[in-house]
């Protein structure tokens, strides 16, 4: 376990030095500046617009970092051959993989937390107060973070057996497909054969359900989010990440490096 932490710590340090987190300053400034503008042009719904805008921005920026950095986590180390010296240490390949995942997960957590702080600062500027009801925004931010973890795990899996470009495309494609899992499950497929119906049913459960993480509407309108959903999403993310990282570890452990 300690070896996983050594890799994770180095991944976080490398990410910080690589200026991944520097977008935060820009983002926070942008949020606060836009809060002033939104406050002036939105009658009564300035808070709703502000929260929707903020959560969307956190999600989008987080997704970009998760996909591009997630794919690069392993593929860059293979391409630049930094892995050769690392794997010469008493370190198993799965430990390296999990360490890289944990390092980026921490990076994303810090990133998301800082962006959330920017959002709350903007909210305070608009409302001149932060209430207990705004805690639902924190839950929405937490769900975004869980979603990003899953995206990183998928990006790492794809980068273990394909080129970085294809890995980005596969991860992006799977993310988009995962947004519509609920729709896929509710589709009326009576025209299809029983085999095809079964196939789509299986697919709808195999695909990562990214729709579950979207509570932006509830957060923007101050509606509460069920504790059960928080527990469900947390466990779902842990289980799905474990399966995806397990598959990545199996592939990576047998991979010939350059």
């Amino acid at each position, binding site marked *: 376990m300690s*070896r996983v932490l*050594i890799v994770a710590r*180095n991944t976080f*340090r*490398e990410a910080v*030095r*690589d200026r991944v987190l520097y977008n935060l300053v820009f983002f926070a400034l942008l949020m606060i500046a836009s809060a002033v503008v939104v406050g002036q042009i939105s009658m009564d719904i300035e808070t709703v617009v502000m929260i929707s805008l903020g959560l969307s921005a956190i999600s989008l920026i987080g997704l970009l970092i998760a996909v591009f950095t997630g794919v690069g986590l392993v593929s860059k180390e293979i391409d*630049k*051959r*930094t*892995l*050769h*010296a*690392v*794997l*010469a*240490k*008493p*370190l*198993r390949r799965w430990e390296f993989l999990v360490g890289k995942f944990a390092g980026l997960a921490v990076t994303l957590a810090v990133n998301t937390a800082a962006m959330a702080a920017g959002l709350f600062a903007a909210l305070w500027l608009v409302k001149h107060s932060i209430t207990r009801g705004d805690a639902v925004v924190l839950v929405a931010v937490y769900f975004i973070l869980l979603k990003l973890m899953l995206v990183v795990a998928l990006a790492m899996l794809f980068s273990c057996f394909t080129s970085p470009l294809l890995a980005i495309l596969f991860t992006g494609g799977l993310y988009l497909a995962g947004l519509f899992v609920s729709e896929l499950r509710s589709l009326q497929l009576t025209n299809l054969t029983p085999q095809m119906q079964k196939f789509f049913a299986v697919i709808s459960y195999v695909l990562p359900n990214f729709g579950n993480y979207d509570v932006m509407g509830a957060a923007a309108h101050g509606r509460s989010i069920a504790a059960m959903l928080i527990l469900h999403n947390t466990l779902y993310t842990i289980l799905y990440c474990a399966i995806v990282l397990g598959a990545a570890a199996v592939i990576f452990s*047998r991979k*010939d*490096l350059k």
Partner: protein
Amino acid sequence: MPSFAIETENLSKEYPHGFLHLKKKTSLDGLTLQVQESEVFGLLGPNGAGKSTTIKLLMGIIFPTAGSARMLGKPVSDVSMHSDIGYLPEQPYFYDYLTAAEVLDYFARFHGFSAAERGERVQRMLKKVGLETAGKIQLRKYSKGMLQRVGLAQAILHDPKLVILDEPMSGLDPVGRREVRDIILELKNAGKTILFSTHILSDAEMLCDRVGVIAGGKLRGVGSPDTIVGVKATGLEILFEIAEGAVLPASIKAKAAKSGAGYQVSVDESELYSAIDELRAAGARIISVTQVKPTLEDFFMELVGKESSRAAAIEVNPQ
């Protein structure tokens, strides 16, 4: 205690290639080799001969298609044995945004050293490889030679029993090469087992107890540099001066060549005294008689030159 530090048996590696990966290219073909403990062993071969493939197979960076390998008595798949192994990859590259000291500290953590011990070892290694003043500079600003030094430092940081160096002189200037040679000799004197690959023959002749010559993915010969070149007959070279207009005996004249102000002639040991007598009779002044010892270079060129045009890539005397 294992009898061999490194043992390979029929170790082979094929790479699929072609559009559908249906064709196979053999990088290493049935390598059977033993490296004894406390031995400096050189893997020689031209570029693409299979030296790096061998080392990557040993380090678990790639996996064999056939055969097996053991290091320090354990199969190479057992990474726990890496605690006792130091490895310098070919053209090493590290994390751009970390300093040399931070990278060494990172690697030292895997060996479980305390913070104080890590700090002491990192500083000692930076000094050893001549980077004590550059330890706090980010590696993206390092030259190739400086990265090579960092690579060497991380390979020996934890005082390993077995050190594997892939082209350790690569990218270094003459001073750097001398320093690396000194470090290898220091490790040798400390009783470490060293396996290193090189295409620079003078380094192998100077440092190795034994060498293995690889060409075309196959091991062509193993032995001490002296033994391996001893396959060839030795000869003698006579250097002499002779007055202008003097007549050389026909047997000498046919083989003599101009050398500076005088001439040189190569003869077999059995012909030495008769040749000297003939030269003296002709009024020549003998300057020196030298035994011509074939070098590893001669052996190497003969061995690989016949089979591969790539032998031209051999760097015979880079200095």
